[in-house]
């Protein structure tokens, strides 16, 4: 079977190439985000991330210095280096990127080529050299404020963790990260045990109503969460839980249970009957059989569910928006990004990319290290 394709080498190549194309299409958006998160914020808006390894033509502006004006007849000559200007220093620091073009008007900042004298009319002229030195000839006394010089400097690509520092220290993103963990971990652990007991009962205990219970679980698997939101929140308000972490723990736990019971029951029913029955013949109670035999043997299914539930609660936006208070200190990362950053920081692509990467980093790590269990779980219960 494996060489039906092998007989036709053209087809082999077509397969390789089409898979490669698909993989690239699938990967490119994420790569863009990843690269952007390390780029300098000014550079992001100058060139696309796919050109991030090339130097960036960065638009800058400064003022000619009036510290040592030389008067030659009717003209006032201003000289100096643009890289001594405070405004320029603030944006490039100690770097001295080569200047490629300059101008004296904001509407056309790259009008003239660096190193050539530009005639500005009325007897005025401006020369900016690639190294930043300039000579500005003015017809009038500049007073105590020099005229503006606009220029383009070719800055080398800058990659740093600066965005990560900004995201994790400012903007309360660190808080949101902790909040996400606070929501996720209890709601991953607690349903497992509850569901395991129930799954054992549904798999290995014989009682009236078992079929009905299983049908209920399967039905609840596909009930849209939307239906649960209003009544559950009303219930929380009625008993005084309100919008709080306790509320979201309860809600997430409950919403995860149908899948947990379904997955675990499907797994447990496949365990060898002999082991369980011989343990019972030896006098073990159901409680002991469950705790000492079934639970350890079900580890793969428990792991599958734990990964599902972790990814689902970590990535959830809907439940967090409804069951957590909207106050700043209770926001989880998804809410923070969707509601705050996309709104107020809509144009700050560096911060957006970094925040997104912080929030998808942990699930990606879990995904790549535990993919085996995830796939197994998907195959066992492809309903949710």
């Amino acid at each position, binding site marked *: 079977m494996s060489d039906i394709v092998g007989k036709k080498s053209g087809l082999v190549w077509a397969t390789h190439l089409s898979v490669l194309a698909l993989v690239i299409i699938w990967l490119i958006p994420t790569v863009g985000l990843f690269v952007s998160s390390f780029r300098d914020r000014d550079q992001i808006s100058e060139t696309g991330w796919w050109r991030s390894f090339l130097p960036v033509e960065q638009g800058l502006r400064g003022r000619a210095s009036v510290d040592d004006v030389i008067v030659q007849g009717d003209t006032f000559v201003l000289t100096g280096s643009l890289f001594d200007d405070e405004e320029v220093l603030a944006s490039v620091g100690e770097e001295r990127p080569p200047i490629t073009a300059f101008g004296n008007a904001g509407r056309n900042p790259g009008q003239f080529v660096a190193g050539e004298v530009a005639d500005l009319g009325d007897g005025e002229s401006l020369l900016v050299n690639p190294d930043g030195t300039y000579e500005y000839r003015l017809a009038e006394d500049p007073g105590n404020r020099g005229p503006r010089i606009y220029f383009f400097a070719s800055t080398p690509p800058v990659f740093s963790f600066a965005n990560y520092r900004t995201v994790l220290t400012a903007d309360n993103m660190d808080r949101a990260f902790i909040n996400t963990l606070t929501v996720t971990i209890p709601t991953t652990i*607690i349903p497992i045990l509850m569901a395991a007991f129930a799954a054992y009962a549904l798999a290995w205990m014989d009682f009236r109503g078992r079929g009905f219970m299983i049908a209920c679980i399967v039905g609840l698997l596909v009930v849209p969460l939307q239906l649960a939101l209003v009544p559950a929140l009303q219930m929380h308000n009625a008993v005084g839980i309100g919008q709080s972490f306790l509320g979201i723990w309860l809600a997430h736990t409950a919403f995860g249970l149908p899948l947990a019971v379904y997955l675990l029951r499907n797994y447990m029913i496949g365990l060898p009957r002999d082991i369980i029955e011989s343990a019972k013949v030896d006098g073990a109670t*159901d409680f002991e059989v469950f705790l000492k035999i079934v639970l350890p043997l079900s580890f793969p299914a428990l792991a599958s569910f734990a990964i599902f539930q972790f990814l689902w609660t970590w990535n959830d936006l809907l439940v967090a928006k409804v069951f957590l208070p909207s106050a700043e200190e209770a926001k989880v990362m998804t809410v923070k990004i969707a509601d705050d950053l996309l709104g107020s920081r809509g144009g700050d692509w560096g911060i957006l990319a970094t925040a997104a990467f912080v929030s998808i980093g942990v699930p990606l790590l879990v995904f790549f290290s535990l993919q085996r269990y995830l796939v197994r779980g998907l195959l066992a219960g492809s309903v949710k």
Partner: protein
Amino acid sequence: MDPITQGLVTIAVGVGGCLAYFYVSNLLLDKVIFPARGAHISRNINRANLVRPWLFLLPVVVLLTLYLAYPVVGSFVRSLYNRSGDEFIGFDNYTSLIGSGEFRVAFLNNALWALVVPALSTFLGLIIAQLTDRLKWGNIAKSIIFMPMAISFVGASLIWKFVYAPDPDIGLINAIRGTFGLEAVDVLQIPFWNNLFLMVLLIWVQTGFAMVILSAALRGVPEETIEAAIIDGANPFQVFFKIQVPQITATILVVWTTITIGTLKIFDIVYAMTGGNFGTQILPSYMMQFMFRDDGRATAVAVLIMLIVSPVVYSNVRQARKELS
């Protein structure tokens, strides 16, 4: 108490409480209520075994009843009341919803999503499963295509903003248009087509899911059938479409319905990308507009979503009952 300690306490209470509940309730049942000794020993053991399954099920049953079963009824009842919930207004919420233009847009868009996303995800998943099956590096390719499953829809929205952004120095699409000398456009504002651009995100996420399941199904196809077809002179396309695919139609259907249900419930993508503007509203995001403002209408939308999903609930339950008997 800060949320972290609160969280740790909750884990301890939750896990410890669960264990304690199961242990103590079993102990009570076996030693106190129906003790396995005395005159009625065998009757007591039988009775204890009748009660025990329900002890094991109790926490799950309580939580599921409160958070999933009761809300199905509770939402429906709430949807018959007005905005503040103090006046019974019958089906007025439904009639006013159906009369509103935005609802119709949301409904039609949702129908479009439910048609396009499962179809394309399943198709792509099937093709990729087949293509990667024979490749040495197939598992790496699969991993990469499966990866978006781990990414939140909010994260995916941000990722795709870097593709769709109107600024040709940020957005890849407009950069490509630029090299052909075309003007930059905001693809999320093109009527009708913007819906398809949003669906691309979900297809990007769901294709991996379809691929994993269908790849396992394809491996389960008996080799003899394939070998026989090859001996009879079938080419690889015929083998795939006439031998392999017909044998996994049941799995394809499962994948298709699973993705359909998922598609009907997604609200994050529209919420984060367009906020439902430019004619991209769908029912779940439409519902969130009413949430906290008009619970009557919010629940009415939720009940309508449930109605759309209910045939699948029915067929799933029937399937499960069939497997049991």
